[in-house]
C-alpha cells in the first residue's frame, strides 16, 4: 500500500495519459455527478457531495475538499463499455445485391477512475451477459479487456445504498487494477493506493510513491468501517429467488402498478440492465440502410410486441418482469443476482418506488400465508 498526496494526484493522471489511456471519471454536469472525460484532478467534483433519497438527487457543497465524497450518480460505466446507441452495420443495396458493412469501433483504452465496489460487481455481471456464454459481444469484450479499473472505497453511504445486502461493497475487494482510499485527517489529504493486477503494478511502478505507514492504514480501515455503519437500507436475499418465482401471480404487482409510471428510468440508470432494441434508418434513395442498436427497457409496450399485440400489456406485468429478472431469473441465467445494491433505481424513480420494499412485501405476504396455513 502506497500513499499518493491529493496535491500530487495529477501524477497518476499524467502516467495514465502517457500509457495511452482515455481517462473517464466523476465530474459535475447539469447538477449531477456523471462520468465523463477527465483532464486533470480539477475536473473531479472537489468539495461536493450528493444527497439521495427515493425520487430525489441533489448535489451540495460538502465541508471538505474531498475528490470522491459522494456515492453513485445517474450514469454507470456501462455507458462506455456498452454505449446507449451503437451502429451495428450499414447495408448497401445495389440493384439486386446487398452488401453488409460491419461498423468498426475504436478499441479505446479506457481508464475508469472512481469505480465503486458495487460498480465493479455490475461490470462483472455484464461480462457474464456479453461474453460468458456461447455468443460474444466483441465490442464490449474488447473495450472491457482494454480497460483499467481504478476503484475507490466509498467514504460515505447514502440512504438508498444497500450494497452490504448484495455482498457488493462498500469495500473494494477484487476486480480492480488500482484501488484508492481517500483520507482527509488533521489537515492532511492523501490517498492510499494499492494494486490488484499486473496492469495496476505497471502503473504504480511508474509513480515512485512512499509506503503507507500503520497510522495511514488504520485511517483507511476507519473510512470503510464508517461507510459500512452508514448503510441503513437492507434487502433480505435468503430464498428471494424462490419466493419471487413462486409469487408471479401475487397481487403486489397490481399494487406497485398503481404507482409505477412505466417510464423506464430504473432500467436506464441500472448498471446491469442490458436490454436493447434495433432501429433501421434508410436514406431517401433506399440504397443505404443503417442498423442502430439502442438501450431498451422492459417497461415499454413495444418490448414484448408480437403479431397482434404486446404480451405484457399491464404495468404490473412489466414491473414484475423487471424485478423478478433482476432478483430471481438472473440467477438461473447468469449464476448471479442482477442487482448490486447501488440504489440508482430508487433514487431516479420519479415516484420513489423502492426495489427493496417491493421485494420485502412479497416476503411478508408469503410468510404470512405460510403462518396462516400452519394455523389452519
Amino acid at each position: 500500500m502506497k500513499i499518493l498526496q491529493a496535491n500530487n494526484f495529477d501524477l497518476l493522471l499524467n502516467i495514465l495519459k502517457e500509457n495511452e489511456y482515455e481517462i473517464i471519471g466523476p465530474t459535475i454536469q447539469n447538477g449531477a455527478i456523471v462520468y465523463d472525460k477527465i483532464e486533470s484532478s480539477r475536473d473531479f467534483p472537489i468539495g461536493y457531495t450528493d444527497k439521495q433519497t427515493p425520487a430525489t438527487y441533489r448535489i451540495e457543497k460538502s465541508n471538505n475538499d474531498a475528490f470522491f465524497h459522494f456515492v453513485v450518480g445517474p450514469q454507470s460505466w456501462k455507458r462506455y463499455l456498452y454505449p446507449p446507441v451503437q451502429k451495428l452495420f450499414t447495408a448497401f443495396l445495389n440493384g439486386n445485391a446487398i452488401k453488409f458493412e460491419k461498423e468498426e469501433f475504436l478499441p479505446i483504452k479506457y481508464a475508469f477512475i472512481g469505480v465503486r465496489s458495487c460498480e465493479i460487481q455490475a461490470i462483472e455481471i455484464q461480462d457474464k451477459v456479453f461474453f460468458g456464454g456461447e455468443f460474444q459481444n466483441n465490442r464490449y469484450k474488447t473495450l472491457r479487456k482494454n480497460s483499467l479499473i481504478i476503484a475507490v472505497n466509498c467514504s460515505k453511504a447514502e440512504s438508498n445504498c444497500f450494497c452490504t445486502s448484495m455482498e457488493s461493497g462498500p469495500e473494494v475487494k477484487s476486480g480492480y487494477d488500482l484501488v484508492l482510499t481517500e483520507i482527509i485527517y488533521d489537515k492532511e489529504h492523501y490517498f492510499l493506493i494499492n494494486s490488484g493486477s499486473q496492469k495496476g503494478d505497471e502503473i504504480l511502478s511508474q509513480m515512485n510513491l512512499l509506503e503507507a505507514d500503520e497510522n495511514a492504514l488504520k485511517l483507511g480501515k476507519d473510512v470503510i468501517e464508517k461507510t459500512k455503519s452508514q448503510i441503513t437500507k437492507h434487502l433480505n436475499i435468503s430464498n428471494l429467488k424462490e419466493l419471487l418465482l413462486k409469487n408471479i401471480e401475487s397481487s403486489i404487482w397490481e399494487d406497485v402498478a398503481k404507482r409505477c409510471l412505466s417510464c423506464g428510468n430504473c432500467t436506464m440508470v441500472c448498471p446491469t440492465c442490458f436490454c436493447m432494441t434495433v432501429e433501421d434508418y434508410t436514406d431517401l434513395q433506399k440504397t443505404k440502410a443503417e442498423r442502430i442498436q439502442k438501450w431498451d427497457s422492459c417497461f415499454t409496450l413495444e418490448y414484448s410486441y408480437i403479431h397482434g399485440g404486446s404480451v405484457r400489456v399491464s404495468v404490473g406485468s412489466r414491473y414484475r418482469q423487471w424485478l423478478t429478472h433482476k432478483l430471481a431469473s438472473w440467477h438461473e441465467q447468469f449464476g448471479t443476482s442482477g442487482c448490486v445494491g447501488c440504489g440508482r433505481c430508487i433514487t431516479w424513480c420519479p415516484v420513489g418506488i423502492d426495489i427493496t420494499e417491493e421485494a420485502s412485501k412479497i416476503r411478508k405476504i408469503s410468510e404470512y400465508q405460510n403462518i396462516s396455513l400452519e394455523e389452519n
Partner: protein
Amino acid sequence: MDVMIPTTYKVQKFFKETHDTFTIELKSIENKNGFSFEPGQFNMIYIFGVGEIPISISGDPNKHGVLVHTTRAVGTVTREMAKLKKDGIVGIRGPFGKPWPIKEAVGNDILLIAGGIGLAPLRPVIYHVLSHREYYGKIILLYGARTPQDILYRKELERLKSRLDIDIIVTVDRAVKNWTGNVGVVTTLIPRAPFDPINTTAMICGPEIMMRYTIVELLKRGLAKENIFVSMERNMKCGVGFCGHCQYGTEFICKDGPVFSYKEIEHLFGKREI
C-alpha cells in the same frame, strides 16, 4: 464473424401458400456449403431497411442447398417479405435455438400437433422422421386450420396421406361447402388419435391457447409432461440472448428454446403476461 451481421441469400422461388401465407426458397450467395439446421431452429431474416424478425425454418433438414421459410404476412417485415420476387435478396442470421427432440424420440411414436401456421416449424420434423422411418414408431400428424382455404401445404399433405406409414388427420374450425372432412378445433382429435401414450413424444406448435388446451388433452390421455414439447414465441431482436426481449420467466426463448418440454415451463405456461 460477427453474430449480429447477416449474410446474404437470394430468393430462388417464391410461392403463395394460402391467401395470407407464403414460402420462400433461398440460396446462400457467400456460402458454397449451403445451410445446415436442425428441425425446430429459426433464423433472423433481415429485409433491407425494414427490419429483422425471427422465423422458423420449414424445409427439409437433409437438403443443404436450399433454405426454406414459410410465414404469414402479418407485420411490417413479413408484409415486405410477401413482396419478394425471384432473385430478391434477404439477410440471414442463424440457425439459432434448441431443436425438436428428434434424437431423444427415437423408438417412440411421434405425435405432431399443429395449429395454423404452426405447421411450418414442424414440417422439418416430418421430413426427418420419414427419411429415418425405421427409427420411429407410429407417426401421427393432427392439424387444425381455420377454414379449408387456410390449410397449409395442402398438396403435400394430400400426397403424404397416401403413404401407409403416417396418419394425417386434418380438421377445420369452420367448414365451407364441399368440405367433407373433420370440423372442430384440433384438440377434439386427440382422444381418438392412434398413439401409445406411454411411448409417445408429442411436439406441438400453434397459438399459445391452442397449445394449452392440447396439453390438457394429452395429459388426459396419459402422456408424461417430459414427453410433451412446445415451440414458444416472443419478441426477438437478436436471437442470441443479448437483447432480452424474448425472456419467458427464467428462460431466453432464443437460446434456451424455442422448443421446451412442458415439464420445463409448466410453472409459467398459461399464466398471464409472462
